[in-house]
């Protein structure tokens, strides 16, 4: 057809002329009876007369079909004629309409085009007319039977194979066949298809004789192709599954069908797509391989081309309908397993190249080693089951078309194995940020891909695969390959809000998906499986390497304009996710959240500001508060001026105020939880009641008191809270004096659950504030305090509480103010604001939790405390580092890997590492790196100190751990330990193997800055854990009494949970080392220490941890020796614990 498209105007005219020559002007006459018709159609060798007869018959049939004139009379003539020419003998050989058949055959033999055409036209019309009439259908069936006789088949074949310019012969023949196939529900369909040697003659060619560009097809005159397509589709429709299979196996038929689909009229395209879907794809009985052969990439691409279908003569809605239909069709083909293109696959477990399921293979291979090796191998490509879809996917352009993007993500969802495969195969399209529609389109596609949930059990059908899926593939599903660190950093650049917003959104998605993946790693049996635990760790490590550093995210957050609240809310959520999911990355950035968080507070508090605050600002605040609860340096109780002119207030009280302000629309559950945690941690309130009584009292006071008086209450409360937080010991002593009169300790303890330091502080501060208050303020204070005590009393009354209340009452009465009796104030179940919500049920939760089985299994203990001994050696670094620039050496952690090689068990590797360290030190010293001197000094000292040890055996882990952790400090001059590390390095050229470098300066020296004590401790504990690896290390810890000091550190009641956990990790690590537990028990009284900690801590979860650790220590020690040492005391202690 392509040829014809280039024909010029003359050519087209010539074509029309030729057609005219073959068309003699057909003559015909009106028919008034069946007998007359029989006469007209009697066989005659004179072709002009034959045509005259056929034309007359056609006129009659046309009046019936069109319904013009007297339709019933015409129908009666037809009926009469059919009865007249009905064959006398019924049977297979009977010939219906024998005159016409004979004429046709004769014409075919003599190549008389006019009659060949007219005969087919007339027969097609007859079949069309009789199909509507129940009594005439039998004639139609007779005609069909006649058609499949050999003579007629030859005529058909002759007609169909006419020269392709003779559409006037081919088209009616195809119409005739179509009528024959469809007659009476497809009664003859099968036999007509059986005779495909004749009936399908030249079908492939005929399917490609379409209308030309110059001669666009009008709907009245269908092209040969249209007729051929309709015939073929009718065959599909009326055949049974077996027949369809046979038809589809015809070579290339489907290819001919779709070859020109793009230039078909809309109605035909829709017909083709509908028929293929209904009669082929949805037919369960057609086997997969046949469908698979028919719908290869070529066919799919042709249908894809319909997305950009255009047709100048049709209305826009029709054109849109085609592209929509094509989209639905491809969505069906590519995502529905019945359609035969989508193969069942194993999700994130890649197809094994030897055709075996990797899941099965994974069952056989048990060592973690083989898994590691496998992981690497998928860097050369990801084998998949759905190779056709993989090829098709690579042809899509998801960045420029929404439909392509939708289709591709739908394919990914149906066959998750293709996600990693797609991005691996299509790496050329980068995600470099540009403000273009293409970039946005790609970002949108990537986002939708990331939102595809991970398949259950990572796609393993058995759900019990022993090995996890390869880390790389899983990672590509969480964070598609185009989103690499470099590109993401550029996207986050504050120069464009749009790219940074999109990047933020994607990173949030990735981190949330990572959390789901990690949860899946710990589901069911996997929680105890070392391979799954290892894999989870590997996944997090690999993830951290691919995402931007925390400082980039912080920079991006800082760069957002204040009024862009949605963007800020998302960015702060990303920061929070860093803290929650990958704290190792988040904490390394030393992000001080407090200034930002004060800013948001300010903007929320300033009622007069122009822009009204929306829910996003509050979301941001909640995120920042949660971040603050993770950062050890947060000063909750330091008073700062949040709003100028409104006096100072601590962030804690300001948040409390916000929490209880009644004009807030939505509950801030997250904020409430964090505040309550902070309050409990600082012992302001008890763990049993949390903030609930206080919030309840505040909410009721707001209703009762004027805003001015409320200010007084707030400042009083702020004062009490700050005092409690800054000098808790003072109030603890007062608290004890209140409780001392109680009968016995047990009672006091039970009472303590509702009674708290804040109440004590209120009682103590009241006399001072009352002096400066006027009468209405005093009344407000009295009302608030009585509300607060009533709320406490309602939770759990105690004698101590009554005593405090009495004191308060005394103070008020001495100033002639009345205080309501304890418990006399009514506390509505739900108050007007703030206090309802998730937190209220805390008490019940905690109590029920206590009743539950609290003991912790050893596996859970291991999960909570065990940090694996340092990662496997990477000897490749010995060669790799030479090629790197100094900045990369320092930033990429190559130095760290090299330092760790000093601990290798092979002497030659240790020696190599030592030499390389010296070379590296020299290289750094020569470079222009800013901190080069310090790093050079550190490396040189490490080398000098290790040199004597390298030959004889292991280098002390303390050296390695110190160097690795000190390196992090040297990179960051703002680190509080920076001065200490530097002065340590300049102090002596070599370190003693019997000592822990720098430990003395941290534990015994003053903190470099007042409020950085805990930051220094946190660093030290991480370093100490790393320094404890071998029995030799243990002996250093033992001889220099570091273990004792660490345990003493752990006894500090104000130590935050995460620091306490680090202490316990060191203890756990020691129990893993040979004779570690025995040393700890006999030399440092570990068991009694643990028991004391258990008794002192209020949290049942933590207590369970101590108990489990006691059990672990006992199980791993030399029990005979410990028994003898303690004279049986240890067993008694353990027995007491289990009671």
């Amino acid at each position, binding site marked *: 057809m392509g040829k014809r498209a280039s024909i010029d105007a003359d050519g087209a005219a010539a074509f029309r002329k030729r057609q005219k020559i073959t068309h003699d002007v057909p003559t015909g006459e009106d028919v008034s009876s069946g007998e007359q018709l029989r006469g007209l159609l009697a066989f005659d060798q004179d072709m002009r007369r034959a045509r005259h007869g056929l034309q007359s018959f056609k006129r009659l049939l046309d009046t019936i079909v069109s319904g013009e004139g007297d339709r019933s009379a015409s129908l009666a003539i037809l009926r009469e004629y059919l009865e007249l020419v009905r064959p006398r003998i019924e049977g297979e050989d009977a010939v219906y309409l024998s005159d016409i058949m004979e004429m046709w055959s004769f014409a075919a033999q003599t190549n008389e085009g006019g009659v060949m055409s007219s005969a087919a036209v007339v027969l097609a019309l007859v079949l069309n007319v009789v199909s509507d009439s129940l009594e005439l259908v039998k004639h139609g069936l007779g005609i069909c039977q006649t058609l499949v006789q050999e003579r007629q088949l030859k005529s058909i074949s002759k007609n169909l194979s006419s020269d392709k310019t003779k559409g006037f012969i081919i088209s009616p023949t195809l119409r005739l066949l179509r009528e024959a196939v469809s007659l009476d529900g497809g009664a003859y369909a099968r036999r007509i298809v059986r005779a495909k040697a004749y009936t399908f003659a030249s079908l492939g060619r005929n399917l490609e004789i379409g209308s030309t560009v110059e001669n666009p097809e009008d709907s009245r005159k269908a092209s040969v192709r249209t007729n051929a397509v309709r015939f073929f589709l009718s065959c599909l429709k009326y055949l049974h599954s077996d027949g369809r299979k046979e038809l589809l196996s015809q070579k290339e038929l489907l290819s001919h069908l779709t070859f020109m689909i793009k230039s078909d009229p809309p109605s035909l395209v829709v017909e083709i797509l509908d028929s293929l879907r209904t009669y082929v794809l949805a037919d369960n009985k057609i086997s997969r391989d046949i469908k698979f052969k028919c719908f290869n990439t070529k066919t799919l691409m042709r249908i894809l081309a319909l997305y950009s279908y255009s047709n100048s003569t049709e209305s826009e809605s029709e054109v849109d309908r085609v592209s929509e239909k094509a989209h639905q069709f491809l969505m069906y083909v590519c995502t529905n397993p019945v359609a035969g293109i989508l193969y069942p696959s194993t999700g994130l477990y890649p197809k094994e190249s030897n055709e075996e399921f990797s899941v099965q293979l994974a069952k056989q291979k048990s060592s973690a080693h083989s898994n590691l090796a496998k992981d690497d191998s998928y860097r050369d490509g990801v084998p998949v089951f759905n190779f056709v879809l993989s090829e098709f996917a690579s042809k899509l352009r998801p960045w420029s078309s*929404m439909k392509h993007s939708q289709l591709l993500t739908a394919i990914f969802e149906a066959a998750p194995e293709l996600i990693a495969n797609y991005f691996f195969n299509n790496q050329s399209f980068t995600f470099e940020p540009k403000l273009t529609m293409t970039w946005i389109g790609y970002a949108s596609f990537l986002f939708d891909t990331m939102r595809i949930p991970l398949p259950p059990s990572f796609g393993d059908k058995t759900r019990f695969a022993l090995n996890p899926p390869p880390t790389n593939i899983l990672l590509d599903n969480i964070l598609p390959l185009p989103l690499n660190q470099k590109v993401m950093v550029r996207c986050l650049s504050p120069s464009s809000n749009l790219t940074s917003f999109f990047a933020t959104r994607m990173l949030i998605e990735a981190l949330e998906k990572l959390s789901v993946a990690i949860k899946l790693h710990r589901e069911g049996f996997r929680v105890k499986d070392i391979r799954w635990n290892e894999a989870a760790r590997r996944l997090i490590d690999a993830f951290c390497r691919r995402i931007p550093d925390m400082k980039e995210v912080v920079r991006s957050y800082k760069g957002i304009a204040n009024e862009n609240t949605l963007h800020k809310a998302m960015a702060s959520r990303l920061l929070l996710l860093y803290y929650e999911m990958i704290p190792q990355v988040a904490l390394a950035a030393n992000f001080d959240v407090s200034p930002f968080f004060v800013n948001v507070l300010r903007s929320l508090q300033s009622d007069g500001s122009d822009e009204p605050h929306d829910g996003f600002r509050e979301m941001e605040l909640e995120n920042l508060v949660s971040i603050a609860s993770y950062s050890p340096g947060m000063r909750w109780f330091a008073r700062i001026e949040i709003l100028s002119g409104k006096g100072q207030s601590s962030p804690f009280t300001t948040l409390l105020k916000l929490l209880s302000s009644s004009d807030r629309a939505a509950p801030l559950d997250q904020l409430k939880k964090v505040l309550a945690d902070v309050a409990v941690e600082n012992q302001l309130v008890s763990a049993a009641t949390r903030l609930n009584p206080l919030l309840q009292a505040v909410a009721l006071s707001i209703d009762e008191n004027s805003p001015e008086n409320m200010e007084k209450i707030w400042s009083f409360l702020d004062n009490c809270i700050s005092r409690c937080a800054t000098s808790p010991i003072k109030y603890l002593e007062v608290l004890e004096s209140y409780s001392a009169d109680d009968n016995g300790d047990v009672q006091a303890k039970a009472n303590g659950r509702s009674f708290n330091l804040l109440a004590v502080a209120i009682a103590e501060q009241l006399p001072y504030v009352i002096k400066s208050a006027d009468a209405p303020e005093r009344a407000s204070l009295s009302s608030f305090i009585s509300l607060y005590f009533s709320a406490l009393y309602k939770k759990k009354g105690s004698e101590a509480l009554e005593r405090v209340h009495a004191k308060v009452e005394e103070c008020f009465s001495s100033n002639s103010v009345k205080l309501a009796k304890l418990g006399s104030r009514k506390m509505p179940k739900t108050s007007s604001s703030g206090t309802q919500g998730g937190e209220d049920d805390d008490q019940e939760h905690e109590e029920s939790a206590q009743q539950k089985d609290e003991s912790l299994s050893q596996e859970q203990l291991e999960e909570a405390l065990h940090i694996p001994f340092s990662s496997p050696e990477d000897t490749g670094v010995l060669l790799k580092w030479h090629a790197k620039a100094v900045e990369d050496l320092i930033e990429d952690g190559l130095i760290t890997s090299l330092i760790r090689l000093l601990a290798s068990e092979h002497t030659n590797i240790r020696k190599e590492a030592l030499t390389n360290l010296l070379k590296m030190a020299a290289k750094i010293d020569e470079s222009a790196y800013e901190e080069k001197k310090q790093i050079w000094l550190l490396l040189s000292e490490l080398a000098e100190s290790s040199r004597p040890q390298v030959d004889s055996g292991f280098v002390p882990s303390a050296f390695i751990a110190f160097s690795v952790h000190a390196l992090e400090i040297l990179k960051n001059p703002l680190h509080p330990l920076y001065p200490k590390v530097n002065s340590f390095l300049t102090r002596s050229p070599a370190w003693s193997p019997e000592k822990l470098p720098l430990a003395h300066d941290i534990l015994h020296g003053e903190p470099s800055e007042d409020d950085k004590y805990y930051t220094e401790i946190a660093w030290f504990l991480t370093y100490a854990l790393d320094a404890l690896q071998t029995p030799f290390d243990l002996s250093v810890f033992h001889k220099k009494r570091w273990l004792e000091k660490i345990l003493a550190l752990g006894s500090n009641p104000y130590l935050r949970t995460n620091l306490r956990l680090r202490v316990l990790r060191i203890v756990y690590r020691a129990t893993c080392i040979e004779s570690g537990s025995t040393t700890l028990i006999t030399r440092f009284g570990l068991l009694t220490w643990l028991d004391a900690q258990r008794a002192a801590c209020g949290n049942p979860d933590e207590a369970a941890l101590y108990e489990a650790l006691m059990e672990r220590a006992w199980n791993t020690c030399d029990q005979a020796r410990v028994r003898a040492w303690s004279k049986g005391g240890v067993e008694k202690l353990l027995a007491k614990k289990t009671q």
Partner: protein
Amino acid sequence: MPQDASHTKPAFSSLYLQKLTQELSEDLDKVRNADDFKADSVPFLVHALQQGAAQFSPAQQDAVLKAAEGRRG
């Protein structure tokens, strides 16, 4: 579309889009002037902007909608 944002409320979705368009207006102007921006890019752009609405939990959506109502009232 995967997880077709089925739990996203239409009201929130449109509010999100409105807010985002406002915050990114400067950059969106640049995109509109880019060579590859055509008339039929608009639905794609809207989809790209709006798809992030699904990242908010129903509770968060309610909170924002409530705050928006409060502002109007």
